[in-house]
């Protein structure tokens, strides 16, 4: 398919320079889909075609959610199946000894944590055989360090986290967006998922419009998602877009493709993306579609002219 076009790019020098729309490090794009790839590979992977889920394309996103215990990366293939047996004996072992050695929950808690905590929960009995205890104690100290250090900034957006239905996110977003003035600037859930389809692509995607603040961000994210489409000349219309215009045309050349980004507004009309200010666009956009340039003729008044311009370049 047209994905091949991107593989050509792979061999060109200056891969990192692809990020010429001025976005921050786009290496974070893929970490949700391949959380355990070593950092050194991330930049390379970012330029490869990756079809991560829409929410993962936000450029500002932090990485590292999956890297709990880096040490296990190498071990995974060599991990013996023995622990299964160990565990069963451990678990059945102490289940049978219920009547004996009952220890206060507080005691075992103390031992594991290694802290003389000020809070002592009482009343619940909990006992483990010494063997299991030691094994877990070791792993705990490993995990503690890894876990705490890896806690990322709360602002990072992980795909599908927190686990809230997108229906709920969308509904809350449309409620709060109308009242942002009155409600103390509380941002609310702030998600606005719209479907994105592309002519010729086997499946459609969803993107959260609220994770972007400009057409450039949206287009770059969609581009990564679908890897070869061309923006309509929003650069010509958008206030911020003028200085980007030449770069966008350059990209058009490189890809040589003829795709145009369009959206369906609240009245059911299909419009070219970029004709209205970003804020109005997010409020009226119901769906996005990446159309072939030839299909987009007649969409908006200037559409015919625009596609002519493209060919001239």
């Amino acid at each position, binding site marked *: 398919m047209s994905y091949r076009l991107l593989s050509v790019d792979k061999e060109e020098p200056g891969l990192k320079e692809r990020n010429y729309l001025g976005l921050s490090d786009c290496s974070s794009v893929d970490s949700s889909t391949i959380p355990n790839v070593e950092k050194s590979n991330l930049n390379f992977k970012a330029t490869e075609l990756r079809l991560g889920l829409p929410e993962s394309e936000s450029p500002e996103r932090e990485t590292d959610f999956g890297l709990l215990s880096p040490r296990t990366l190498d071990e995974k293939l060599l991990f013996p199946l023995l622990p299964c047996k160990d565990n069963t004996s451990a678990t059945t072992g102490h289940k049978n000894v219920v009547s004996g050695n009952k220890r206060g929950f507080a005691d075992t808690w103390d031992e594991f944590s290694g802290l003389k905590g000020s809070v002592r929960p009482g009343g*619940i009995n909990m006992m483990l055989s010494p063997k299991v205890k030691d094994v877990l104690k070791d792993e705990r100290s490993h995990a503690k360090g890894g*876990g705490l250090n890896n806690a990322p900034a709360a602002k990072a957006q992980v795909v599908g986290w927190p686990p809230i239905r997108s229906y709920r*996110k969308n509904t809350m977003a449309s409620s709060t967006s109308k009242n942002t003035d009155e409600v103390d600037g509380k941002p609310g859930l702030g998600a606005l998922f719209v479907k994105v389809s592309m002519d010729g692509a086997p499946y459609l995607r969803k993107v959260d419009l609220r994770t972007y603040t400009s057409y450039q961000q949206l287009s770059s994210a969609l581009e990564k998602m679908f890897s070869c489409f061309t923006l309509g000349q929003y650069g010509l219309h958008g206030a911020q877009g003028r200085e980007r215009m030449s770069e966008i045309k350059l990209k058009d050349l490189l890809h040589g493709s003829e795709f145009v980004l369009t959206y369906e507004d609240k009245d059911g009309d299909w419009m070219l993306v970029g004709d209205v200010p970003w804020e109005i666009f997010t409020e009226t956009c119901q769906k996005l579609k990446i159309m072939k340039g030839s299909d987009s003729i007649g969409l908006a008044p200037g559409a015919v002219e625009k596609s002519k311009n493209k060919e001239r370049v």
Partner: protein
Amino acid sequence: MNYFPDEVIEHVFDFVASHKDRNSISLVCKSWHKIERFSRKNVFIGNCYAINPERLIGRFPCLKSLTLKGKPHFADFNLVPHEWGGFVLPWIEALARSRVGLEELRLKRMVVTDESLELLSRSFANFKSLVLVSCEGFTTDGLASIAANCRQLRELDLQENEIDDHRGQWLNCFPDSCTTLISLNFACLKGETNVAALERLVARSPNLKSLKLNRAVPLDALARLMTCAPQLVDLGVGSYENEPDPESFVKLMTAIEKCISLRSLSGFLEVAPLCLPAFYPICQNLISLNLSYAAEIQGNHLIKLIQLCKRLQRLWILDSIGDKGLAVVAATCKELQELRVFPSDVHGEEDNNAAVTEVGLVAISAGCPKLHSILYFCKQMTNAALIAVAKNCPNFIRFRLCILEPHKPDHITSQSLDEGFGAIVQACKGLRRLSVSGLLTDQVFLYIGMYAEQLEMLSIAFAGDTDKGMLYVLNGCKKMRKLEIRDSPFGNAALLADVGRYETMRSLWMSSCEVTLGGCKRLAQNSPRLNVEIINENENNRMEQNEEDEREKVDKLYLYRTMVGTRKDAPPYVRIL
């Protein structure tokens, strides 16, 4: 029992309602199997790919009600790409062909098209009830065919679906002769509603007990609707953006006062807080209250309302209620059985002091002795709190705690939350569903494996250290049916330790874990009765490279038991091993 004629046995079976029990009955002997087969009216299929329509109809030819679930649970959170599957059309086609007397269809997470709805509406003369939860793929045109053609329609219940609203006149499509409606829920429709058509419909539906409006139904219309239907038991309110004028307010209040049967209230998508007092008169009767979409209502307004709801059994609310508000709930709602607290601010951008913490959770557990189900989103938690909750409420059946920030430890001691969750599973012997979050090591899974004997569904995210964690669970929780794991370091060793186990479960989901393609292939090799699906979204790319790297990690693994082998409707990016 052998001496009774079949009709008598069948009559006895009528008293056995639960699916589990009926399944058990059918295993007793051939004769019972046969009687049970032909008398079975309600069939529940938890995974639409575990069986196919032909076999279903072959076994239960007299079925009247079918429940189907499609996509895995994590599809709710956008972890399953579009077009993955779960299409209902083949089922409806098969049922129509076989002339099954279908009366009720309940679907969850399935793809429903207008074509399916049209076919449904035309194929079953006695069709009475359509319930769609978290489905997608249809428009209001499909609803129009249901309205127009289902002469016996009693229930049309649309919950949280993605529906393309063509702003058509589907409500007008209910014929004037349609007077049988008992339940109508279109809260999830985003577009305009023909209010006049709605009012006429409600006026001619004397049996209407449940009505849930969408945001397009304004306040004055609500008053008229309620005046028409004082027999309502369950009401979902639309929106009132503006403060009502006194006259409208009085009209509304008068209408509400007459609804003495009202037991359940929901909606309030956009509501000016000053409208709430109109509902005060019926609060004392409410057993269910869902304010979880009411983003505008501040904590203190919520508190005033809740203070009047002394009989409440089910409460869904936003965390804007705060710990203070939860304390009020704990003091007032002594009958509370189910509580869900949703976040009003997902990205943690606000330093929101009004949000709920472990303090609210402990208060609820202390004040509400009948509490058995909880879903709680919060920013912080402590082991001490969880231990206290476990002590106060040993009756939990469902315990779902979601700490918004992954890997977050006990915020006072900086420990992992293993001990807290351990206390929960140890105390709550009847626990069937658990979702864990926060900083967790393998130890919590040891506790879960040891103590959670009744656990059927477990959701794990960003937890654990090694394969042992997953192994503890698989070895210990004998009743596990659905295990879903994301972003946790469990790999092939855990996956492959006991492959036979998966046939005792409905499904396993693992995404962003450490399982590799090689591991999945090995799993699939010896398991003809399991479908092992790999979702790698850049699959197209890889296919073009000639070698397949078996050490390559798998993005998403979804495996489920099935009696009908590989499904034929999977999209190209789903690989079934």
